[in-house]
């Protein structure tokens, strides 16, 4: 197997799923976060995610879940990345945080290793600039649920080499996935378009044009989207949506991406979507779920 040992930075929603997916495919994973509490939560989330994966995949149902979990080492120590074969960074969607992570990884990981950024919108070229190996820095934008998505948005920074793109395609192939390669402008393809739609859908609710359920129903039932924009926002996490809009707003600077005040207020109020049990819809399991 290529890249038998993979470092995963960030044990939030997406980092946890990436770690799980890698361990399912047989990689050994070093999952790094700043707090042990987050790492503890990640371990139990992976256990729960494996149950979910089992529903649709007999291979996962029959595999040893304890065995998959045993391939993941959780740590707060970046030092354990010193002999890793490849790193997938999933740290918080904030440019200063990610730049610091990349500078740190560059110091710790051997110079020929690829550093991949899982980011919604941050410029790969800019992150590459925080390292001494810009040709080996690349964007891999996994979307959740990671184990069910066959395609990953792969982002080629200004200096990213073709060899790096090819190696990452091989790596994704081993996970049963394929990369669609895009060039590097903030938000790439997915979020440059999606965040505008989500932000406008939130404004529609804010302006009392329609309820969240009605907004989403129009997208699902009239336009045949699998999920409406607000359920999608809840799935991504409203805090992540807000941070992504802020990054895009800062990057393009023309006001298109200015976050709707309702979104900011919901995040301030602790309504972060599915992961907090409530966002535009309720996920507590007991009350009226509004699923379409």
């Amino acid at each position: 197997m290529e890249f038998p040992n993979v470092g995963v930075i960030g044990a939030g929603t997406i980092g946890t799923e990436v770690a799980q997916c890698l361990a399912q495919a047989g990689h050994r994973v070093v999952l790094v976060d700043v707090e042990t509490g987050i790492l503890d939560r990640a371990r139990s989330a992976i256990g729960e995610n494996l149950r979910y994966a089992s529903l649709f995949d007999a291979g996962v149902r029959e595999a040893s879940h304890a065995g998959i979990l045993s391939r993941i080492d959780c740590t707060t120590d970046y030092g354990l990345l010193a002999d890793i074969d490849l790193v997938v960074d999933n740290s918080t969607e904030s440019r200063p945080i990610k730049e610091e992570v990349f500078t740190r990884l560059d110091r710790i990981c051997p110079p020929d290793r690829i550093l991949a950024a899982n980011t919604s919108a941050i410029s790969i070229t800019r992150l590459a600039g925080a390292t001494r190996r810009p040709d080996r820095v690349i964007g891999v934008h996994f979307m959740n649920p990671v184990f069910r998505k066959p395609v990953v948005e792969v982002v080629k920074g200004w200096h990213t080499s073709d060899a790096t793109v090819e190696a990452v395609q091989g790596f994704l192939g081993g996970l049963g996935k394929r990369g669609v390669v895009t060039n590097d402008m903030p938000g790439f393809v997915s979020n440059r378009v999606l965040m505008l739609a989500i932000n406008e859908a939130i404004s529609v609710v804010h302006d009392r044009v329609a309820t969240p359920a009605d907004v989403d129903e129009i997208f699902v039932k009239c336009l045949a989207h699998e999920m409406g924009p607000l359920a999608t926002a809840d799935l991504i996490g409203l805090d992540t949506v807000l941070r992504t809009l802020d990054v895009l707003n800062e990057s393009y600077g023309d006001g298109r991406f200015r976050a709707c005040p309702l979104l900011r207020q919901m995040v301030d109020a602790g309504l972060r979507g599915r992961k907090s049990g409530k966002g535009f819809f309720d996920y507590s399991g007991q009350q009226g779920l509004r699923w379409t």
Partner: protein
Amino acid sequence: MDVKARVRSYLRQAVMEEVGDGDDLFELGLVNSLFALQLVQFVENEFSIKAEREDLDIVNFSSIDALTAFVLRKTQPPPGPGHAAD
């Protein structure tokens, strides 16, 4: 309320549409795949059962009939002597 009525009532609230007992929730697009885990959590909490790994097959959760049969199988006492649960 019997098992089927409780399952039906939960789904009516969740899907906000009439659901036939045999309708495949996923195939008909009444819910998307992310709803599956919520369904598992619902039956576990509502009926105080635990879905073991071998139970976690989407066929057990794809319709009112399937969910009801699954809950009954997990809650009914094992058959009498000579049929020890395997």
